[in-house]
């Protein structure tokens, strides 16, 4: 289980501020989570929630004003991480005058593990000629070129900010397939932000949901889903009246019509009793939590920060964040 896999990214009491100078404001406060190595972790949240900020902090470009952010066992931004971490910013900064071939050559010269074929595969997806200048490419092609440079580096941690947002549906699937294939072959860990949940549902195995300056959900996706159920009105009434053999924390109605389902989090000790009830899908889980900001968040045991391998020992599975 991933609870015992070594850690790729760990946050302990991390606070992050956005903006510069006098306009700085706290965006994320007291974040605590861990992402194990080998994970494909989706970072989800509304616009402005701090997804990009968290990614750039993991890349070492923004310093936390409080707490500790650790990447592959080192403080985020440590020089030793340069070869191991790749980051694709949502603005895809590329030198506009440079040609694709020159950027690839730069990637080769700067990175000890450079893999030309892995980069070239993504250029082919976008039909990007090697002699085209970065500044002349379409938005989607720029995304693919930036992804190519990051993938060619064979990073142990790949940080992607909305990597698929301007790709057409076919290229989007193909690009995501390549990245997932790398992870399946043991080539590192991926953290990617997206607000297109459909892209993520089958792709990710871990989830970080950020909203209102906090981590609302963190954990292995299957574990997060398994901790929740969808109940119809009768089921919910039975629970609230204490007639059901399990205890739940209602989050939010999922659909008003026609079934009046409500998402609930089931207390771990009573979860086996709830086996019959319907599990939510990713989108239902995320939307419910976003619609109910007053409900306490939940960190699955394996995502709670701790020393390698012992993250599970201090939690009972029902602690609200």
């Amino acid at each position, binding site marked *: 289980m991933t609870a015992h896999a070594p850690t790729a990214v760990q946050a302990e009491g991390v606070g992050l501020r956005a903006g510069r100078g006098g306009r700085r404001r706290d965006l994320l406060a007291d974040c605590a989570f861990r992402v194990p190595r080998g994970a*494909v972790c989706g970072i989800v949240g509304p616009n402005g929630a701090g997804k990009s900020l968290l990614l750039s902090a993991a890349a070492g470009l923004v310093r936390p004003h409080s707490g500790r952010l650790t990447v592959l066992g080192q403080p985020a931004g440590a020089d030793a991480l340069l070869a191991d971490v790749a980051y694709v910013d949502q603005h895809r900064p590329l030198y506009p005058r440079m040609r694709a071939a020159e950027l690839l050559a730069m990637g080769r010269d700067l990175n000890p593990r450079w893999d030309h074929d892995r980069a070239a595969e993504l250029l082919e997806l976008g039909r990007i000629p090697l002699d085209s200048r970065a500044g002349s490419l379409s938005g989607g092609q720029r995304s693919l070129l930036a992804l190519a440079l990051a993938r060619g580096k064979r990073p142990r941690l790949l940080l992607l900010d909305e990597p698929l947002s301007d790709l057409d549906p076919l290229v989007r*699937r*193909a690009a*995501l*397939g*390549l990245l*997932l*294939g790398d*992870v*399946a*072959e043991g080539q590192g860990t991926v953290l990617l932000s997206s607000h297109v949940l*459909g892209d993520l*549902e*089958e*792709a*990710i*195995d871990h989830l970080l949901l950020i909203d209102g300056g906090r981590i609302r959900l963190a954990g292995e996706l299957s574990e997060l889903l398994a901790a929740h159920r969808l109940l119809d009105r009768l089921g919910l009434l039975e629970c609230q009246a204490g007639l059901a053999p399990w205890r739940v924390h209602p989050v939010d109605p999922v659909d008003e019509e026609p079934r009046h389902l409500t998402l609930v989090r089931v207390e771990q000790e009573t979860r086996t009793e709830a086996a019959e009830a319907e599990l939510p899908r990713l989108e239902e889980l995320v939307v419910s939590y976003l619609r109910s900001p007053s409900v306490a968040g939940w960190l699955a045991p394996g995502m709670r920060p701790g020393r390698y391998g012992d993250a599970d020992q201090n939690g009972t599975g029902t602690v609200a964040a």
Partner: protein
Amino acid sequence: MKYQLRRSSGTPAYQQIIEQTEQALRLGILKPGDKLPTAREVVESAVVNGNTVLRAYQELQRRGLVESRTGLGTFVVGTLGSADRVDGSGLRQELEQWMTRAREHGLEREDVMALVVSVGDACFAERAPEGRAR
């Protein structure tokens, strides 16, 4: 062997992999000794998380249908149904003729499948279903 995973079907991706493998075994498309696609191949073509594929392959191994050989891949070791007995029996051809007639009568695919399941249930009622995925 190529998996066709459908997102909207409501069946989890890992279960679709199990069902399609079993289907291929039943139809004789996969035979003992055949190699299943690598996790990378499935992940790339179906765009699913690698753990999904591994979980499905582990379940197939638990059912005694495939075996993972370290560094080589996952291989078919078991059989399902009676693919050999179908070959040469003419059953497939008869079914094809029957299906063509059903289509000529204006039946949709769903109508035909419902009919097949219903007649199948009646004919095989006394026999326990073997090895069916949940």
